[in-house]
């Protein structure tokens, strides 16, 4: 059953890579990249159990956190064109006076 889950995750990663290559928008590519990252975390867990070494979970934890931070950073760059922009301050500038 570990083998089935590992193969399913690998097939899903192939589909996500195809979408990242084909996808017409930049947002399709970002979504596919984030999916590849999440599937890589699951693949690390499954492969660790398949090989009998669950210590790989530490790598999976680190990878999950890094994946989320990277995706949010690129999306913020594409939305505002600047990484140092303060979106909350920008929105409530009139209220704050």
């Amino acid at each position, binding site marked *: *059953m570990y083998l089935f889950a590992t193969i399913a*995750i690998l*097939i899903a990663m192939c589909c996500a890579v195809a979408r990242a290559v084909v996808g017409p*928008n*930049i*947002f399709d590519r970002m*979504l596919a990249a984030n999916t590849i990252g999440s599937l890589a975390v*699951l693949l690390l867990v*499954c492969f660790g159990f398949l090989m009998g070494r*669950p210590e790989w979970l530490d790598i999976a934890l680190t990878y999950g956190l890094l994946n989320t931070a990277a995706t949010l950073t690129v999306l913020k760059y594409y939305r505002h064109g600047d990484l140092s922009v303060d979106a909350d301050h920008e929105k409530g500038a009139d209220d704050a006076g």
Partner: protein
Amino acid sequence: MLVDLISGLFIGAGGLFVLIGALGIIRLPDVFSRMQSVSLIETVGAGLLCMGFIVKVGFSLVGLKLILLLTIIFFLGPVVTHAVAQAALAAGVKPLLVHDRRSAATKADAQPVSASVDKIKTPNVKASVKKALPKSGSKKADI
């Protein structure tokens, strides 16, 4: 024996949901509808897989790490999906399947803009692999 059976059921169901989500990533027509299948992978697929492994290892350090990993994926995946949707809407990507059911009078407003819809439609995979790459450069500069 029973533990193996239950964890095998959970892991098999998780692999099945991951496959269904992958099918949705390939087949669905729009970035907003593809988000739905991505969140299927990230909540149900990851949840069932991690649940199966937790049942397998029981209460131990590995189980605690699995619970932590499940929490991270379960809560940060929808956050990222929401951020993608917000950035796509802010960049002017129109939802392809927009359908306003509130009244028939506003039906004309709810029609999607046809010019941008033609661009977003699902491309033929074989034909547009080479075509999509130079197009992305101009699109990036556009945004």
